[in-house]
């Protein structure tokens, strides 16, 4: 193997694999942060560190790295890079060098994020970075700003690249209504990235300008306003949830259709009403993060309605996904187990979000463990399970080898149990008043038992994820040869050899009138 051809590669598949390696490394680091936090919280008062700042840095790193370093890059970096050109029958993306630049910038971003653990005065401002704290702390806010800016720029050029690729490089005969749902979902996610990432970039730049260059964006004594930051920040960061949600739902659609050997239920509804609806509504709901932040009343009530309406497109996508099971022929290999697990986790996560859309209920629930439990169910765990499902699913394509099915299933069940122990308990004590981001819960010592239960659950969760990671490493090195299409899928990426060569196909594919990626009944 030629290392230079990997490091400086411009091939979309290798760029994708580099994204995967980087994001899994980020996942491991951020996961260790979670375990350290759970260890700290296993007793009231100091447990493994007596310095609250240390805990706050873990908390910052866990959130920032999981979202910016793991979920978004794994979904819009690895899956999009690896699958989109293959699914649309292209030999590569529109701008391969730009693609290489985006993965390199992603690594620069990861390096900056990980410097947190090696520099004096690391950032301790949470992944939200609210001023005034972020402009007066002794922590290094600039590191946070540059991490976000560089990862954001990588996302933007990646988005430009893929939107161009999907628009102009589809194989002959592959019309818009024959695209894989995953391609549609990713397209929606990239449109959201292009519109909203610049706003986040602006917001985080302004806090560093205030802190280091003497400006007064958020200084009320000179005419600035602290609330503006929160608006700019959430104007991106709520749509960021859909940047994660859309591709992971796309992955689920691919897996469920393949393992149910069935066509997607009501394809056009999923694409136009579901994905389209989410893209249209994504920018009008951010104020639900600011229900208790002192915004004017009318906008809080108005966005309560738009926030609740998000349930419509999400519900339509869920109907499409569950409907794909109807009259299917379902088998339960590891990717499918993870995907079906997500259905239930997402259901819990989505429904527990409804109270958080209601402005009056958030007066109690906001900034408690209920919120933390909810978004871990709906985004963190559902997203991560989908990423694991997708990696298992495309594992034979990427490596040409098979993972171990038995250990795959064991890993799934362990993580599934661990997840529910941790995050269900979290929501429960949140409703009872436990506030988030607490290094010490001396005023809530009645929750010590619950915290210990969550610590045990977190360890179980960690074991489950570790089994999956080890399974991949062993499978990639010594797994049985998998063949080109082990799942019997109709989708184009399975029509080439595993792993695909540079250029993907010896002769470019074209598709027939009857073909769709889900045309199972017609074989």
């Amino acid at each position, binding site marked *: 193997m030629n290392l230079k051809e990997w490091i400086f590669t411009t091939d979309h598949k290798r760029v994708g694999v580099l994204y995967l390696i980087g994001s899994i490394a980020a996942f491991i680091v951020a996961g260790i942060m979670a375990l350290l936090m759970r260890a700290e919280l296993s007793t009231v008062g100091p447990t493994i560190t007596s310095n*609250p700042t240390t805990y706050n840095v873990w908390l910052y790193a866990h959130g920032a790295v999981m979202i910016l370093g793991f979920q978004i890059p794994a979904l819009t970096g690895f899956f999009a890079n690896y699958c989109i050109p293959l699914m649309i029958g292209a030999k590569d993306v529109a701008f391969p060098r730009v693609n290489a630049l985006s993965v390199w910038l992603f690594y620069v971003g990861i390096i900056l994020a990980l410097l947190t653990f090696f520099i004096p005065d690391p950032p301790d401002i*949470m992944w*939200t970075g609210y001023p*005034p704290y972020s402009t007066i*702390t002794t922590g290094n806010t600039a590191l946070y700003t540059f991490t976000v800016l560089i990862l954001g720029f990588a996302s933007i050029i990646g988005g430009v690249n893929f939107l161009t690729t999907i628009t102009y490089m589809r194989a002959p005969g592959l019309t818009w209504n024959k695209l894989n749902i995953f391609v549609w979902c990713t397209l929606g996610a990239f449109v959201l990235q292009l519109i909203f990432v610049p706003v986040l970039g602006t917001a985080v730049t302004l806090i560093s300008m205030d802190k280091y260059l003497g400006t007064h964006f958020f200084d009320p*004594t000179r005419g600035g306003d*602290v609330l503006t930051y929160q608006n700019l920040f959430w104007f991106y960061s709520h749509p960021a949830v859909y940047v994660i949600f859309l591709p992971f739902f796309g992955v689920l659609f691919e897996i469920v259709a393949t393992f149910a*050997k*069935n*066509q997607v239920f*009501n394809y*056009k*509804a999923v694409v136009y009403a579901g994905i389209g609806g989410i893209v249209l509504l994504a920018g009008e709901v951010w104020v639900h993060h600011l229900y*208790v*932040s*002192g915004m004017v009343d009318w906008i809080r009530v108005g966005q*309560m*309605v738009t926030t*609740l*309406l998000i*349930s*419509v497109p999400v*519900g*339509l996508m869920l*109907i499409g996904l*569950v*409907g*794909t*099971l109807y009259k*299917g*022929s*379902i088998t339960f290999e590891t990717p499918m187990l993870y995907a*079906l697990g997500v259905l*239930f986790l997402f*259901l819990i996560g989505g*429904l*527990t979000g*409804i*109270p958080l*859309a*209601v*402005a*009056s*209920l958030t*007066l*109690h629930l906001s*900034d408690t463990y209920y919120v933390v439990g909810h978004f871990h169910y709906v985004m963190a765990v559902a997203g991560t399970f989908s990423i694991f499902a997708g990696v298992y699913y495309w594992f034979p394509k990427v490596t040409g080898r098979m993972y171990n099915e038995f250990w795959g299933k064991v890993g799934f069940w362990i993580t599934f149990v661990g997840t529910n122990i941790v995050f269900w308990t979290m929501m*429960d004590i949140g*409703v009872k*008043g436990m*506030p988030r*981001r*607490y*290094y*010490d819960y*001396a005023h809530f010592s009645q929750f010590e*038992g*619950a915290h210990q*239960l969550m610590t045990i659950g977190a360890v179980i969760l960690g074991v489950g994820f570790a089994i999956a990671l080890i399974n991949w490493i062993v499978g990639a090195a010594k797994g049985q040869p998998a063949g080109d299409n082990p799942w019997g899928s109709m989708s184009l990426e399975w029509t080439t050899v595993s792993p695909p060569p540079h250029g993907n196909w010896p002769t470019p594919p074209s598709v027939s009138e009857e073909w769709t990626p889900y045309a*199972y009944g017609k074989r």
Partner: protein
Amino acid sequence: MDKILKRLAVTSVAAAAAGGAMAAAGGAERVFDPAPGWDYLWKEVLIDISVIGILFALMTAYLIWRYRRTPDNVVGSGPRLSPAAAVGWVVIPTFVFMADDFFIAANGWALWNKYRDVPADRLEIQLESGMYSWDYTYPNGVQTQNELIVPAGKPILLRMTSRDTLHSHFIPDFRVKEDSMPGRVTYIWFLPKEAGKEHLVTCAEYCGVMHSYMAGRVVVKTPEEFKAWYETSGASAKKSS
């Protein structure tokens, strides 16, 4: 360990049960107390989402079991929807979801207005938060720190601002919080009912290193006790200034 298992078992029921009891206790004559209103709405929404969730989960589980691979079911035969059916599968769920959304939104809005409309007969107290304390100033100039002494049965309005970072004055027992920040004034109100009780105040917005230690309490006194305390400390506040 026993405690842990028990908690796991009662978890789902506990939150639902907490609601009903308090709704009935609802407060003083004309004043609508938002806290029991919160518990009532929470219970209502919880029932709503539980019903949807259980129905959906059961249906999904049934589909998974019913359409598993068997020797005479080796390939899916999902329906190809007619245009009318395809549109129906969009329009009907959309209206069902929207009906539920608007039902919840309307109830949420009504309760929201109760939270935001402060009764005219109230005690108005200034709050300045800072790293890491709650500093209250009463109308007569009395100042307290981390201890909000209030008379039972009277609506309490806090006008809040901050001298440094964001903080959030959270009183779990009264189901209310709102951020305080430099440069703006925000408010919350609540209705203390039972004299002799103390309620925890805690910070709910990450404000710095000692965030988790930023706590205080609401001390509820009888109107008479409160009046006595208020007047004596008011007199000494005047003397010292």
